[in-house]
């Protein structure tokens, strides 16, 4: 009871349904706590957590930091651009140096797929994957599912479409795994050049027409177009992207139903989503942010409970 089957959180695939249920139930309690006048619990008073961010992040980092503070953990923050680390110290050396300072748990964001697995295998600590390149972003998927569940009651047979750059998205991959585990039906939608050739083999439908995808779905998760990562050209211009895949009020109002809209942030307003839609009652974008803290508190709390501390 109230125990996870895993020692780390590396991938959604490592979790079973009961793990996810435990995380959600724990998050319910923490959500209640962070809405109290006194938002802090002393639970992890003797735990030190290092937040290793080898890639830029605002939202995820703040969310983790706040979750850790609400649990009264001590925090060590480390940020480095991947290139400076690549030239000098290896990832394992950096992590072991920090662990020598008696750190109990590592939260890591890293540009390389598999980096979290690598760290978990090669260091003696608990690792929470806060995004590893194009592989996974498990806490995001959990908070997305939690937020959807909050709105819809259950994910069973719910139709969820993930829209945007699927090829480079860790959010998409983790969401696909989590949603399917919870019984949702998943579709991905985006430009042909940004959909991996074999994605259908993960058990998702593929659609390249935004309107058709929206007509099908109950929930739309809009991914951020990574404007800063366009070293290879996957579509001719943002303008063309917006014309085909931008979510605006006209498209939404042409549907004869209400759909729930998610976005992992940060939003490119006017690119994948217009302000009007992002700020509409259909949108649960800000709920996601609030739930993010509760979900991360739950994960840290549950994993900290599994630490072997002498």
């Amino acid at each position: 009871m109230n125990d996870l089957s895993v020692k780390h959180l590396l991938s959604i695939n490592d979790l079973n349904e009961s793990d996810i249920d435990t995380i959600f139930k724990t998050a319910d309690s923490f959500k209640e706590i962070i809405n109290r006048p006194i938002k802090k619990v002393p639970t992890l008073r003797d735990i030190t957590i290092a937040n290793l961010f080898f890639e830029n992040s605002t939202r995820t980092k703040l969310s983790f930091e706040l979750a850790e503070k609400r649990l009264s953990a001590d925090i060590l923050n480390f940020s480095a651009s991947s290139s400076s680390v690549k030239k000098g110290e290896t990832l394992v050396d950096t992590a072991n140096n920090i662990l020598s300072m008696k750190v109990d748990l590592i939260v890591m964001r890293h540009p390389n797929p598999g980096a979290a697995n690598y760290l978990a295998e090669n260091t003696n600590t608990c690792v929470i994957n806060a995004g590893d390149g194009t592989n996974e972003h498990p806490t995001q998927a959990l908070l997305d599912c939690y937020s959807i569940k909050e709105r819809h009651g259950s994910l069973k047979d719910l139709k969820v479409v993930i829209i945007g750059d699927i090829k480079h998205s860790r959010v998409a991959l983790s969401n696909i795994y989590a949603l399917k585990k919870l019984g949702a039906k998943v579709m991905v939608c985006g430009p042909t050049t940004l959909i991996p050739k074999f994605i259908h083999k993960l058990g998702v439908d593929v659609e390249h027409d935004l309107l058709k995808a929206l007509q099908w779905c109950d929930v739309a998760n809009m991914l951020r177009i990574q404007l800063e990562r366009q070293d290879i050209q996957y579509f001719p211009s943002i303008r063309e992207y917006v014309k085909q895949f931008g979510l605006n009020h006209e498209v939404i109002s042409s549907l004869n139903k209400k759909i729930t809209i998610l976005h992992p942030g940060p939003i490119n307003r006017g690119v994948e989503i217009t302000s009007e839609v992002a700020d509409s009652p259909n949108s649960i974008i800000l709920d996601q942010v609030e739930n993010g803290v509760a979900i991360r508190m739950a994960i840290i709390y549950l994993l900290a409970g599994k630490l072997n501390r002498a």
Partner: protein
Amino acid sequence: MKSPTEIILKQVKVIDPNSAYHNKKVDILVDNGVIKKISNKINPAKDQKLIEIDKSFVCPGLMDMSVDFQEPGNEQKETINSGVKAAAAGGFTAVVLQPTLEPSRDKLSDIVYCKEKKHQYPVDIFPIGAISKNNNGEELAEMYDMHSAGAIAFSDYKKPIHKSGLLSRALLYVKNFNGLIISHPYDDSICTDGQMHEGVTSTSMGLPGIPSLAEELYINRDIALTNYNESKIHFNIISSKESVQKIADSKNDKINLSCGTSIYHLIFNDEDLKGFNSNFKMIPPLRTKEDQFALITGIKEGVIDVITSNHQPHENEIREVEFPLSPFGCIGTQIAFPMALTYLKDELDLETIVKCMSINPRSILQTDIPVIEEGFMANLTVFDTHTNWEFNKENNFSLSENSPLLNTKLTGKVHGTILGNMSNFST
């Protein structure tokens, strides 16, 4: 190591389709580097070294057709001496050195360096020279000069030749002296950041893929160029089902070509990379189970001629990193043959394995094929198929340790090799 003058191999079963003793259990007397006598029973005389191993086999000395000993340039990975030692322990009496890229092996003196490199193991060294100067894919290197110095074939190895015109001229130019172009078919322009085979496994791991198409595009192109120039070509390692089919069709069309695959591609597939195991990261990448089976069938049907180790050493320091940063390739020359004996015994008979690892490579490269008959120079490998042993750090002779099979138990052991006056027996 220099041999005792006379060696007797007791009760060894001969695996050599070119020999009258094929599949027969005999005693073999090697005198001064030559097979002097083969008979049911030879009584040992004084001063003769006796090799007597229970249920052992002897085959023509094995040839590893693709090893990357990185001398000169990266001796911390492998020197010719350490590589040859590992190869000898693996049963090879000949290795074909893929060209170093830094520095490029693109002129006569570079070939001479390899040929004259002194070592103490019964292994012939056959260096491959570059096709283009500095492997730049722009200008032809002096292939005739290198050929005269002993370059066995020509290849730009890991640097794919993108200019079809250059490859076309190379194929045409080497015809003059019956030279051979070896292709490593890989059009990396369609997958510049590829990490592993593109398929459901790469998708599920969020890793950029290398589609089979990257290989097939260049196989198709290279075969067309070979056909047009009426030349010949060898594909070092093919990895996909479609490549096997294309090679089979082209062989039927009487195009002069041959191909190999690596021992790893016959035993493993992309699912072995799950969990980000970078020891299995290689080029061409391990493909799907279906491809793996197609390769095995390709060997059985004679479409694939050669099995290599694809030995690519890397020092630990550059490997102890996250998956996308770790280099491609793993070592294998010491265990390629035992791997075949262990994992492919239900698929391939000994004769087929020996053909692919000894006879066919020499036939493709037009070097003498050793025959286990009286009067021939002794060039042979002694092994068994039943001894269990573990490949580990202690018995690994490579300078590098990048093997997915370190600390793995293998069944079937090489006991030693003889090449002329040199021999290398562990017992």
